[in-house]
């Protein structure tokens, strides 16, 4: 077995001219390459840091603008500086109301961000609405039946209160006042006036009857906001006992709609007036 290369190759190997090793040039080129590599890494790092910082700022700004939380702990999606919107229907639970007075139950529902309505037809005289809730069968549809006499329907204000782009259009026409609620959450509609209160909205002008007097005012809507102009509010002056419709309308700040009913809310979204088509 051959275990060596031919001598001639060994001799040629030794004769191959190799010259001096260009160490200085290699070092210079190598240092230049290293500097270039370090610059590239530094540039890439700076770019990454800038991107992260800018991205973080943009995200933070977006979060401040859109991810704030309402007082009731429910996320609200709204631009900065606008009125808090009602919670979405899917995220709101109907609280237990069994054992509570009807009015307290209504308030509790409202505090949970729901729009609570006492069906006046079933409730009858206002006095009966203070009855204690003895039975309830909460359903997914957010409907709570209380015994056989009173029905509380809890619903979430519609995401699009008017169901149309303009609340003016949604409000337009004549409405029957089906509920009028005091600041304490008590019903202000005595049985005798249950079907007599009416309001008509038309192109920024509101007219109506509060029982025995006629009222009139200018109103303005913007998005989910509704304001009744205090200075423009006028009323006839027949001396009679009637629900304080005009006074309560001045507290209205928001509007929402659920099914065929339009709700006028106070600043804290508590229902002030419920309107159904007359």
């Amino acid at each position, binding site marked *: *077995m*051959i*275990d*060596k*290369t*031919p*001598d*001639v*190759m060994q*001799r*040629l*190997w030794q*004769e*191959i*001219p*190799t*010259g001096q*090793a*260009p*160490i200085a*040039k*290699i*070092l210079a*080129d*190598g240092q230049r*390459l*290293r500097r270039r*590599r370090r610059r590239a890494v530094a540039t890439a790092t700076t770019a990454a840091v800038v991107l992260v910082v800018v991205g973080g700022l943009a995200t933070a700004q977006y979060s401040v603008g859109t991810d704030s939380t309402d007082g009731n702990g429910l996320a609200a999606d709204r631009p900065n500086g606008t009125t808090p919107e009602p919670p979405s229907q899917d995220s709101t639970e109907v609280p237990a109301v069994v054992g509570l007075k009807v009015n307290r139950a209504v308030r509790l529902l409202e505090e949970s961000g729901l729009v609570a309505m006492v069906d006046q037809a079933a409730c009858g005289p206002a006095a009966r609405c203070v009855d204690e809730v003895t039975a309830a069968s909460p359903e997914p549809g957010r409907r709570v039946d209380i015994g056989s006499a009173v029905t509380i329907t809890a619903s979430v204000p519609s995401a699009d209160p008017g169901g149309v782009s303009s609340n003016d259009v949604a409000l337009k026409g004549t409405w029957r006042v089906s509920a009028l609620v005091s600041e304490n959450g008590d019903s202000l509609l005595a049985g005798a006036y249950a079907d007599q209160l009416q309001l008509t909205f038309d192109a920024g002008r509101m007219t109506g009857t509060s029982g025995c007097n006629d009222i009139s005012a200018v109103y303005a809507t913007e998005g989910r906001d509704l304001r009744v102009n205090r200075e423009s509010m006028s009323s006839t002056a027949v001396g009679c006992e009637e629900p304080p419709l005009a006074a309560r309308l001045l507290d209205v700040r928001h509007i929402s709609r659920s099914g065929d009913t339009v709700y006028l809310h106070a600043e804290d979204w508590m229902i002030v007036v419920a309107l159904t088509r007359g």
Partner: protein
Amino acid sequence: MDHDRDFTDFASARWSALVRSAVFLGCTTEEAQDLAQHTLLRCYTSWRKVQRAGDQDAYLYRMLLNALRDARRRRWRNERPTATLPDRGRDDQTHHIDVADAVDRALRELSPANREAVVLRYYAHLSEQQTAQVLGIAPGTVKSRVSRALAQLATSTHLKDLTEGPIR
């Protein structure tokens, strides 16, 4: 700087072997010098990696082979034309060219794999283990390739002609 001094010692000790190995692998002398310089430059920029390598010589020759293969793929595109040729006188190289040509022909008869194995094992003086590491093959394969290459060189007519005539 220790870093540069270590590299300088390392590169100076290996320069000649790198150039000669490149020649035996098929480069001209100038190409071989360029290749050795390129290899050492890469070695310098990755010096920490080279220092950490278990076998620095194996690592270096692996870089040389990779650079050679890259260069062959790129057809020495790093070579730049120049208007003025380097002005340097040379001795009569005729006899040397004859020998180099004969050796080159003999080596060219080998397969590339056998040629790399014999050059690394017998001329760069790497061990079987190192050669296997550089070529990425088993030591047994190195042994068989080298054996085949040596047998082929021993019977090469190109080299036989030279040994019969005087070599200065």
